[in-house]
Each structure stands twice: as structure tokens, then as C-alpha cells.
């Protein structure tokens, strides 16, 4: 999966498009594919998950479009919740692809991205001394945004 923004930063309310393609898996072994744009929480609490955009490609549709060609999904992102990384809660946005095999196995691939406000996405707001959103590293691993730590009370 590849995102249209290489840095993985998306403005709240902006458009997202992602390309996906399945390779090294025979078409006969695939039963269906689900592509979703969603946010989920990580951390100490139980997981919250909310799907913003969902697309299911059934077996007969897969046979028609094939696996070799790149497919594209588009969606307009919501204005909230923004990406966040705290001590107890992390809120992560991602494009998730779930591949259902004929054998009953499921293969999941994720491409995380950050949903940030317009002010955070502006280049000047990413000055190191005011950085609230940690930018993706070179290897594309995601990180979220952070609140200022509370001083010891």
C-alpha cells in the first residue's frame, strides 16, 4: 500500500488516496479483500476502533479486476479525531487491508498515517522547538502526536 502523501501527514477534512496491490498470492487462493480507512486506539485501555471508509471486494469482483493491477481508494477524511500519542492512550489512523484466504486464513497489512490540524501541517509549525507531531521516520514507521508532559506535582 502506498499513500498519496509520502510524509504520511494529512490535514483534518482533507482528501486521502491510497494505492494497493496484492502480489505473490495466487488469485485462486483469495476469497475477498477488505480495505478500510480507520482509527484505532492503543495503550492500556481496551481498543476503540472506528472505520471511516470501508470497501469490500468480493471473490467475483477480484476475478474481474485481478490482483496484478494497482487499485485506488479515495476518501475525504473527517475533521477529528486527530492522531495522538500519550502515556495511556495512542490514537492511530491507518489504511488497513485484510485479505481473506480460501483456507480461512486472514492476512492484514496496515499503512499508518497522521491526521493533523492545518496549523500542525504548516511547515513553520514543524520547527523542532515547537514540534507536537513527531514526523514519520525514514523507514515509514508511524508515530503519533504528543501532549506536553505534566510537571511532577
Amino acid at each position, binding site marked *: 500500500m502506498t499513500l498519496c502523501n509520502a510524509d504520511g501527514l494529512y490535514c483534518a477534512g482533507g482528501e486521502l488516496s491510497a494505492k494497493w496491490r496484492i502480489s505473490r498470492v495466487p488469485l485462486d487462493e483469495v476469497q475477498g479483500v477488505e480495505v478500510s480507512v*480507520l482509527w484505532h486506539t492503543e495503550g492500556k485501555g481496551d481498543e476503540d476502533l472506528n472505520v471511516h471508509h470501508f470497501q469490500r471486494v468480493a471473490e467475483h469482483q477480484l476475478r474481474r479486476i485481478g490482483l496484478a493491477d494497482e487499485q485506488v481508494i479515495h476518501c475525504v477524511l473527517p*475533521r*477529528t479525531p486527530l492522531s495522538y500519542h500519550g502515556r495511556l492512550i495512542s490514537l492511530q489512523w491507518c489504511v488497513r487491508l*485484510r485479505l481473506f484466504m480460501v483456507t480461512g486464513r486472514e492476512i492484514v497489512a496496515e499503512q499508518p498515517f497522521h491526521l493533523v*490540524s492545518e*496549523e500542525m501541517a504548516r511547515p513553520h*509549525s514543524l520547527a523542532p522547538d515547537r514540534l*507536537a507531531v513527531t514526523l514519520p521516520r525514514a523507514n515509514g514507521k508511524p508515530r503519533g502526536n504528543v501532549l506536553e508532559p505534566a510537571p511532577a506535582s
Partner: protein
Amino acid sequence: MPRFPKPWSKKRGKRILGHALAGEAGELTFYAGLFLVGVFGFSLVLINEVAPESVSQVPTDALSTGLGTWIFGILSLAALVTGGVTLLYRLARIGASSERRSAIAKMAGAIEMIGPSADDSQSLPSVPKGSAITESPGERLTYRLAAEKASSGIAGPATLALLWSSVWLVLLAVVVSGFWNGRPRWYLAVLLVPFAMISVWSFRFFLTQFRQFAGVGPTIVEIGSHPLVPGGQYDLFISQSGRLKMKRLTVLLTCEEETFYRQGTDVRVDRHEAIRQVIFKERNVAVDPQAPWEQQLHIDLPDNVMHSFVGTHNAIRWKVVVSGESQPWPSFCRSFPVVVHPPGLSLKHNPRST
């Protein structure tokens, strides 16, 4: 040695002990069994009511009286409905990914709406609306904030102290009468000691609550604008009534992470204060019933902070906290929730205009 598959699974952090499918199968079996037991029991009750001669061979004591029949019938019906509904719900979840379930739930929610309202285009998903916060106009500033939890009343502690003391006095009377009649009840006499300790504790608890109730008056917090936006500046008005001398009075703006998680069969909550901004701090504050302590303050909300967020198991809550350490009254701490929106997306609403 082959291990017998367990019909349950257990979540330990992110790990799941046991096979998830075994857990689902175990749940399905349990609810199917509950449903069938309910069907059987309810059938027995129906047959007993409609054609009692045909169940003469059924050896059941529960059906021997009218009241027993009704109780048995209600329990059977409850088992039937609970088992049936939960079984159908669990069956519907099998084979669907968590994303698909979420998408279906979202579609189901959209069906209820006749059409998108004017507010929908402006909506902020997972951000609390805070309508309860903005429905009360203030006297000095635009909004009067509502306290998170009403101050605990004294009716509960008073009832507890009164009832427990009454029980203790009744027991005392029984013990005294036993001694009087020459038939002492020693085990009751021994029980009087722990019961007296509980009685003293409940009375002291009542006194503490009463002192707090009588001494610490209401706290009024008003704010000039709401919701808040990162980087914004806001006027804040605080008024504290009562009759007390505080060693320290503090007004804070806090951002708290709150998570709910299951540990075994318990649901636990954990909180972490991510941001703590001291708005006001003063020592030796005197509050008189004729002259409440009042202060006009300012909030400077930092840039690049997270907006308010509410999920099913996780939340990020902003609030204004007023706390005081006083003598001889107990210390108090009152929270007034506010909603923080992301920058550039805030919705304005004025209670005076509606």
C-alpha cells in the same frame, strides 16, 4: 501429552490465552444451552397451566404452587430471551472482521437519520459536543460551567449512621434484657464490639461530610468563550462561597487521559494527567458568608495540544479544577469539564442568542 482444548479464551494485555475460536464456540454452546433450558422450562409451565393432567408424571416441586409456577415461568422466559438474543448476536459477529462490524454499525447509525442535518457538515466525530456546558449563561462571563459531579450530599451518610446506630441499640437492648433475665447471650455481647466500631466509623464519616457540606459553599466557575481552542486566551471567573479559611487555594486547567480496561471480570479505569497548568495559586484565603472569594483569571491554552476526545473505552478530558486545603473543614476539589476543539475547526454557540 495432548492437551484438551479449553472452551474459553482469556485476554492478557495484547495476548489471547487459548484459541479465540474455542472461546467463541464455548460462548455459543453456553447461550444455546441457556436458550434450550429456557424453552424446556417455559414449555413445562405452559403445559402445567394449559393441560395440567398431561404433566402428572413430571416430578417437579417448583410447579406445585401457583407462586412457584410463576417464578419458574419468569426465570425460564428470562433464560429463553437472554440465550436466544445473545446467541443470535454472537452468530452475527462470527466471520466478520472488526472493520466490517464497525462499518455495519456506522451504516446502521446513518439509517436512523432521515437526512444529514445542517450540523452534520460541521460535526466533529469523537469530540464531545459539550452542549450541557454551554446551556447555562453566566452572570459575569458568557457561560457558567457545570461541576463534574454534584457535591456529595449528607443524606446517605446520615441514613447509614442512623440505621447502624439503631441496629446496635436494638442488639444492646437484647443483650441487656438477656442479662436482666439471667439468660445472657454472650455471642451477641461479643458482636456488640465490632458493631460499635462500625457505628463510630459511620458517625465520624457523617460528621466529616456534614462539616464539608456546611462549611464549603458552592464554587462558581464562569468562562468567557466555549469551546476552547489550542493557542486561545480565555477569561475565567471563580467564586467560592462558604465560611472557611483555606491554607491554599488552587485553580488548575488539566488534560486527563482516561482508559477503561477489563482485568478478569472487573472493569478498571486508569487516569493520567497529561497536562497541568496552574492558573491561580494563593495561600491563606479567607472566605466569609457575606463576602465570597471572587477572582477574575485568564487561561492561556498552549498550542499543539490534543482536543477533547471520547471513545467507548478511552477518553481525553479537559477540565478546570478548583481545590482548597482548609482547616478545620476538610479539603475539597471540584472539577468543571470544558471541551477543547482542534484549532481552526471550532463551532461557536452563544446561550444568550438562543
